[in-house]
């Protein structure tokens, strides 16, 4: 127990994973940026040196420019909104008042029972109609993004509920016995532990969000899969180059990996930074 979480002096392949995780956040972001930059550079140089066909380049450039940016932006929008929804609903679920906990339970059960794609289509086609902002595809897209945030919110509510419930009742009683107010007990004792206990599961959920955002292609949002299908179809039907289809999806897979890795590493760094012996998991 006493040595857990302390740096190891062993330096071999087994500690490499640890060292990677323990590297400062900045260094890891630089690593990801380097990989992405390398990808861009390689493609650009191939283009400049004529190693890559102009037509293939034209198929790949919107994936890199528009697709990667939009996938990142959608994820960056869904993650905080979903986390706020999940936190509030998870908190409501552990309430002693049925009038608060019951709607939260219904929400979680309902949303978990509907596929993300169905939620997206429902939000895209129906909500603009309800709010009388028809004719605006942007509004539909906003609602679809919100639908994904609500979906992950239902899953995160369960993560947060487990986090709240992981704080032993005795610690809350001990804090009250010191004279802490209900609010102080929450901010000084419950939340710091909830935060640490939920981080690994939240990181997992955030990684899923990045990939679930690909479903937005179904309503024409110009993210990675949208451009991938577009380019792949072009490569097949117009240029009859089946190899380019593989290239296209390979690059998209790399981009998804890079975005997911970036986000999970940020969460991993938080986990590492706030780790406490005996509470939650120690990263790796």
């Amino acid at each position: 127990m006493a040595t857990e979480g302390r740096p190891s002096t062993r330096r071999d392949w087994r500690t490499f994973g640890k060292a990677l995780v323990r590297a400062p956040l900045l260094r890891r972001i630089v690593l990801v940026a380097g990989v992405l930059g390398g990808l861009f550079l390689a493609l650009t140089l191939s283009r400049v040196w004529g190693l890559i066909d102009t037509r293939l380049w034209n198929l790949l450039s919107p994936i890199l420019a528009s697709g990667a940016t939009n996938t990142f932006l959608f994820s960056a929008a869904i993650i905080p909104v979903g986390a706020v929804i999940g936190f509030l609903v998870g908190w409501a679920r552990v309430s002693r008042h049925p009038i608060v906990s019951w709607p939260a339970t219904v929400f979680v059960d309902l949303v978990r029972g509907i596929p993300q794609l169905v939620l997206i289509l429902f939000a895209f086609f129906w909500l603009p109609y309800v709010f009388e902002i028809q004719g605006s595809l942007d509004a539909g897209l906003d609602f679809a993004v919100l639908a994904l945030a609500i979906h992950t919110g239902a899953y995160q509510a369960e993560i947060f509920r487990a986090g709240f419930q992981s704080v032993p009742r005795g610690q809350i009683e001990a804090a009250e016995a010191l004279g802490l107010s209900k609010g102080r007990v929450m901010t000084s004792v419950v939340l710091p532990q909830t935060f640490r206990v939920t981080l690994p599961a939240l990181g997992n959920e955030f990684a899923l969000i990045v990939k679930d955002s690909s479903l937005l292609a179904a309503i024409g949002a110009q993210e990675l899969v949208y451009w991938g299908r577009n380019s792949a179809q072009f490569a097949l039907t117009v240029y009859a180059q089946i190899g380019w289809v593989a290239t296209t999806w390979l690059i998209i897979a790399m981009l998804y990996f890079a975005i997911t890795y970036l986000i999970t590493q940020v969460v991993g760094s938080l986990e590492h930074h706030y780790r406490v012996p005996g509470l939650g998991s120690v990263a790796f």
Partner: protein
Amino acid sequence: MVIGPSGSGKSTLLRCINLLVLPDKGAVYLEGLQVNRPDIRPEWVRQQVGMVFQQFNLFAHLTALDNVTLGLRKVLGVDPATAATRGRVLLSRVGLGHKADAYPAELSGGQQQRVAIARALAMDPKAVLFDEPTSALDPEYIKEVLDVMTGLARDGMTMIVVTHEMSFAKNVSKRVVFMDDGAVIEEGTPEEVLLHPRHERAKAFMSKILV
């Protein structure tokens, strides 16, 4: 000292005294002032009365020092530097000055309970309640906790202790209360209650345990 069989209401009695459980009837007096009244905040009463629990209940995310100083910082608004100085003094008093930066999971049961005692003392309480403070400890750690409590009693701290440590009750307490079925059945000096109980239920209890 409060003794008695399981389920007799000993822990509930302690929780009523610091208003963690609001008594349905009866009065709790703190230095002559009735405190279970609507115009007195339970939080204020709990600041005046420390509590030590059977399961230690240390805050798992805080170091020993931060456990001790949390009340000072968050309830009394003492600045962190002053609180830390006082916290270190208290930890030294329970023999754990060298463990200030350890987390609860890195401490033995006896050490955790001593940190919990320091935490209760940090608020400079008028009395400290102990709810079976040694019942969850491995035998080898019981003495270190009882020694700290004995020292506190010698220093004149008012303590109400629910315990099954009969020799400790006999040697340290001024007054022993025997409870059964939610009521005080016998009270008096340790000599009277532990060695010469008058009530049948108290006699039966004492005969089954080692005094």
